Structures are given as C-alpha cells and as structure tokens.
C-alpha cells in the first residue's frame, strides 16, 4: 500500500478499500496508512537541506491525505482518526539528540510562523503555485469552471490551511514568540499586504478556530 500512496494512486486505493469493505475489512488499511503518514511526514520535518520548503511540503501532504481519505477511503471514521493521530505524532517528534531533552520539536512551529509572515507580507503573490485552491482540481474532484480569482480569499484560504497544520503542533509558545516578533516588524516597516488579513489571523489564533 505504501507504493500506492507514494504514487497517489487514488483510484487504486479506492478499489482496494471498496473490496475490503465488502467483507467489512476496510479498517485493516489503517495501520499501513498511519505508518506511511508518519514515515513520509518525518522525512519532511527532519530534512535539513529542504527546511525552507517544510511548510509547503506539509501543506501538500495534508491536502493529498485529505483527498485520499475523502475519495478513496470514503471518509472512514477510524481511518480519519488515524490520519490525525499520525500527523500529530510526526510533527511533534523530537530528534534523537540529548540536546532536546524529550521536549517537543520546535522547528515546525518556527517554520509555520515564517510561512505566515511571508503570506502576510506578500499577499497572494507569496503562495506557491501548487497550493492555490483554484489550481487544476485534483483527480476525483468535480470540475468547477466558474471560480473567480480573488486575492483576499486566496490568502485567507492559505491561512486556514496553515492554521489546520498549526493545530497539530504542541509547542505553541515557540510559534507565538516568532509570530509576535514578525508581526511587530511588519507593522513597523509598513510591510503588511492587508490589515484585514492581519486582524483576521489574530482572531483565529486567539480563538483557536
């Protein structure tokens, strides 16, 4: 199954799940799914050479997983839980050094804060092309021909996705420290793409939604 996931073979996964479901065995796929998520996610988080792309890759991974869960696994409850649990596990994993003393890994928090800073400074221009919501629809979704490009909602959409990631991170204090510093700098330099986006982000962080 790892191969199917590596290739994002959604239709094959769907067939696999459907077949197993006939015998009520759909849940058997859960452990393999979880393992693949943990392995792939850890690979991203601990890749020092590609640290700058961490958040992008995590967002892409989450998108892929959500799609697979919806389409291939028919929103299976147990598998859905497994998805969220394994996501939470790898994103907080510590490296095996004595320096970290078993505290949660702070890198994802820091990188997410940086990514948010880029978004709030640059607006929609800062969004990598692959993550646009109006980019060509993933396999299995319906075509929607009348989407109008709207900068504000693109940025909001990205922030929503990033917040979704953020909810998995345990080390919120790290993120908050970076976020505050970056916000101060944006305000003082007049480097905000949109005051509305700033306020809406703060509200969302405070209420946790």
């Amino acid at each position: 199954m790892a191969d199917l996931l590596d290739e994002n073979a959604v239709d094959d996964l769907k067939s696999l799940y459907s077949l197993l479901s006939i015998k009520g065995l759909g849940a058997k796929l859960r452990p393999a799914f979880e393992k693949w998520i943990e392995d792939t996610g850890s690979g991203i988080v601990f890749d020092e050479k590609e640290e700058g792309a961490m958040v992008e890759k995590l967002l892409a991974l989450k998108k892929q997983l959500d799609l697979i869960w919806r389409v291939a696994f028919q929103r299976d409850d147990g598998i859905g839980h497994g998805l969220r649990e394994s996501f939470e596990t790898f994103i907080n994993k510590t490296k095996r050094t004595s320096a970290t003393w078993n505290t949660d890994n702070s890198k994802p928090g820091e990188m997410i804060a940086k990514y948010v800073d880029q978004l709030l400074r640059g607006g929609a221009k800062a969004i990598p092309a692959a993550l646009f919501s109006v980019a060509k629809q993933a396999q299995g979704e319906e075509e929607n021909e009348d989407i109008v490009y709207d900068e504000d909602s693109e940025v909001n959409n990205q922030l929503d996705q990033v917040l979704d990631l953020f909810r998995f991170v345990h080390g919120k204090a790290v993120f908050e420290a970076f976020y505050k510093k970056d916000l101060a700098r944006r305000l003082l330099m007049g480097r905000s793409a949109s005051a509305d986006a700033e306020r809406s982000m703060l509200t969302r962080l405070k209420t946790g939604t």
Partner: protein
Amino acid sequence: MFKDVELSREEMTSYKSVLAERGEDLTPDISVNILSASAWPSYPDIPVIIPQAVKSTLDRFESHYKNKHSNRKLDWKHALAHCQVISNFPNGRKELVVSSFQAIVLMLFNDFKINEKVSYEYIKEATGLRMQPYCPLISIANWFRQRPKN
C-alpha cells in the same frame, strides 16, 4: 500593537499641524512610531551618534511629546528606523531607502569632497558604532558612495 500604530499615526498628524501653526520648518520629515514597551518585543539599545541635523528634529519631537504627556519617557530605538536618503550621483539624483545606521554612515560623506577617501577609523569615531556587526552596512554604504555610474 495595532492600537499603538494607530495612535502613533494620530500623534504624528497632530504634531505636524502644531508645527505648521507655529510656522516652523517641517523638514526633514519624520514619522515616529511610539511603542508601549509592554505590548511589543523588547529591542536592544544600540548606542550611536546621530548627525546634528537629524538629532535636533528628534529632540524637537521629544520635547513636544513630553509636554503633551508629562509622565512618559521615550527610549529611542534607532536600530529599527529606516530613512530615504537623496543622493547625487554623476548620473543624477537617486533616492535610497536605507536603515538609519546606513544613512548615518552615508551622511558622513557629506563632509568630504567627491572621490576623497574616508577611513574606517574615522567612521568608527564619528558614528560611535561598534563596527563588527555593521561591517556589511559600511561596505554597502561605501558601495553606494563610490559607484561612478548607475
């Protein structure tokens, strides 16, 4: 923090109209962000010598502010400031957006003739900046100054 930015904007507007009423010179144009220490991250104090032309403008604002709010103290964080510096190059006038420290170094060159060299020691003395962190700033500032063409 948002509130402080708003308030600062209002302070500046009222300050400028006060100056205008008094018929005072509005140049060089400054814009001050007043941050309440508790709401913002802490910024280190970096000692530096401000050129007199700029200093008197800042002092004037500070006394206005202290008169208005008698119990408050202002701590200038020059390291956070940036400026627009108008330079005359052989190719024409250029407007440079630089940090305050870079601007201070650039302004030193006003006291010298074109193509006259300015020593590192002189810059160190005149700006009061501990040089190591600011070497890149100096070389950038120098680069601007010495470019014969653009």
